[in-house]
């Protein structure tokens, strides 16, 4: 922890960055929230513990945050992968952000100033679903189709179309989302059952092969819809079908931006 605070002070004092995006204590003992540290002495307020799960990469593309100047960001492996995925989609340039990589156990902090260093860093941490996530996914996959339909319909029925899932997603950076294109209006604006289903499937598909499974969408959902299951399912499929895993490289392609002539499928007639 001291290591992180010292790094942050150093970076700010030296003027290497103008702001560091990290975590500080939140409203209660169970919550952490984002900190935008701009003065070296503010580094004292930083924390790094199991509460710190939000994917702070969402702030890297926020206009107001960009205005703060050059940024450093405290990044757990998932956030680090997010940064690489954003880089591979040309949303971040090499050297634009200094990443303070946090090891999986949350103890060590390393300064990663280049994407190359970041790639090495994430390469050491296995990506993929946790055992817990796999169990939940398998539970739904194990249902009959009718049960799955009923399950998702009851979940989607609660959706209020606030798009908090989109706002919280670091990969949802389109300046104009498909739901805001209204000529024609592809996805109904209103939160009725048809519009909700279409929205959730579109959201998942637009994240197919790109999702880093940070879970911020599900956390943000005020209605408690487990919508990260959809993107998890797609990530698993992309891995199984194409061996593609998002966020490993700053230059690589992702599952749907490339193809192989011998991609296997068994359902095309």
């Amino acid at each position, binding site marked *: 922890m001291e290591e992180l605070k010292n790094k942050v002070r150093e970076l700010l004092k030296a003027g290497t960055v103008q702001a560091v995006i990290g975590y500080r204590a939140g409203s209660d003992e169970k919550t952490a929230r984002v900190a935008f540290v701009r003065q070296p002495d503010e580094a004292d307020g930083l924390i790094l513990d199991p509460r710190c799960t939000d994917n702070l990469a969402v702030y890297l593309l926020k206009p107001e945050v960009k205005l703060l100047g050059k940024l450093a960001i405290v990044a757990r492996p998932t956030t680090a992968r997010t940064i690489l995925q954003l880089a591979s989609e040309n949303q971040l340039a090499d050297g634009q952000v200094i990443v303070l990589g946090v090891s999986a156990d949350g103890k060590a902090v390393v300064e990663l100033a280049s994407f190359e260093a970041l790639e090495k860093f994430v390469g050491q941490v296995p990506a993929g679903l946790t055992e817990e996530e796999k169990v939940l996914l398998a539970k739904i996959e194990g249902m009959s189709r009718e049960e799955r339909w009923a399950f998702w319909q009851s979940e989607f029925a609660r959706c209020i179309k606030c798009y908090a899932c989109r706002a919280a997603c670091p990969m949802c950076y389109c300046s104009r989302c498909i739901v805001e294109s209204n000529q024609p209006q592809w996805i109904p604006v209103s939160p009725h059952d048809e519009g909700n289903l279409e929205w959730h499937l579109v959201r998942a598909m637009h994240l197919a092969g790109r999702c880093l499974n940070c879970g911020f969408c599900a956390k943000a959902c005020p209605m408690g819809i487990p919508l990260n299951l959809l993107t998890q399912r797609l990530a698993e*499929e992309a891995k199984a079908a194409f061996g593609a895993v998002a966020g490993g490289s700053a230059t690589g392609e992702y599952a749907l931006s490339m193809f192989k002539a011998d991609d296997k499928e068994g359902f095309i007639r």
Partner: protein
Amino acid sequence: MENDNKATGAFEPKLVAFVCNWCTYVGADLAGTSRLKYASNVRVIRLPCTGRIDFMLILKAFAQGMDGVIVSGCHPGDCHYTVGNYHARRRWILFRSLLDFAGIDVRRVHFAWVSAAEGAKWADLVNKVSGEVRELGPYKEYQGLAGKGIA
């Protein structure tokens, strides 16, 4: 086109086919000019390439009351735009998996490669899909979404 066969009163599925301009559309045309008889309950919508067939079109087709969807284009290696169908294939692999996971009946979504020369394959495809979807009956689940959730 009604959902019932006027003569018998039996259910006739409504199908839509999204096909590419260069292969399947020509293949379907060939089926016609060759006077091959095949099920008449399919509406063909021609798009430039399978790569252009947005997955939303499939959802919209169900939302508009279709009971089954066919998506078809050039065989791998034959794409007029070189690689459109390879990209499409990847997208379908993921999308089909997502549909299935969301509980949508993937037996109602059929993907195929039909070349310009395969008029007979087209006729056969439409007949088979038509038969399969007829067995499944009308897609009431999805059609029931319309207006649901509006107070």
